[in-house]
């Protein structure tokens, strides 16, 4: 298993690398394709997981987060601007509904998942299930 610079093994690395290679192969053949949207970063701590997601311009009511088993799904919709009788000079922003499903690398306690949305970034904190948390084992001196 590959280890990163800090010597911590990263189980996603190989899959990611393969994904990169596939992506660049597709890009070179078909041109730039749509990326997984919205993009998410996954962080793991001792007691929880944190998933951050860039979803600018979505109102809170239009965002829904759901945990089923080991999958987190994020759903929402980006409404297009209501533009009347006017000409677009540029149109680069994506609009419409989106849905992401993220496989969680650890079991979580679904009842205690919390989410915050600030400045277009969604932060979902998922406490790990009790059996996933590291347990300190005391060593008895004889």
């Amino acid at each position, binding site marked *: 298993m590959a280890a990163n610079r800090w010597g911590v093994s990263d189980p996603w690395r190989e899959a990611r690398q393969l994904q990169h290679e596939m992506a660049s192969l597709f890009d070179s053949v078909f041109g730039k394709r749509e*990326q997984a949207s919205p*993009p998410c*970063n*996954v962080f793991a*701590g001792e007691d929880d997981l*944190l998933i*951050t997601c860039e979803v*600018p311009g979505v109102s809170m009511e239009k965002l829904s987060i759901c945990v089923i088993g080991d999958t987190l799904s994020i759903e929402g919709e980006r409404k297009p601007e209501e533009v009347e009788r006017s000409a677009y*000079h540029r149109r680069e*922003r994506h609009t419409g509904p989106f849905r992401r499903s993220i496989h969680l690398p650890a079991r979580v306690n679904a009842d205690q998942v919390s989410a915050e949305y600030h400045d277009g970034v969604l932060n979902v904190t998922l406490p790990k299930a009790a059996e996933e948390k590291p347990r300190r084992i005391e060593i008895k001196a004889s």
Partner: protein
Amino acid sequence: MTLMERKEAAPTRSDTELTRQARQFVPDVDIYETEDSLMLIADMPGVKADRLNVRLEKSILTIHGEVGTPDVGERNLIGAEYETGNYYRAFTLSEEIDQDRIEANLKNGVLTLRLPKAARAKARRIQVAAE
């Protein structure tokens, strides 16, 4: 092209370099024109209002937004699909803009800029004094 380069890296201003080592990205924008204004909408997730800088100088409009390093506590990154960094983009405006009436609004990481067109008659009428 890797997944990490989803956001397009922004070129630095002319031939200068940033003093701080920070990534810079090009925000996605929509620009449309209404009868009296030019509207610019930019996706800048992670930017707070006090960290956003919009300037109009000699028909060059620049947008610069700073994104701090996200606070993730003692956690390790185990899966990454995006990188955080500042946003920078500059446009040359062909219309004359009434600089005093520009409105900027930042909500949920989306910047909305209203650039009212300057009244043409006012801008073009030149008084010629007859002797």
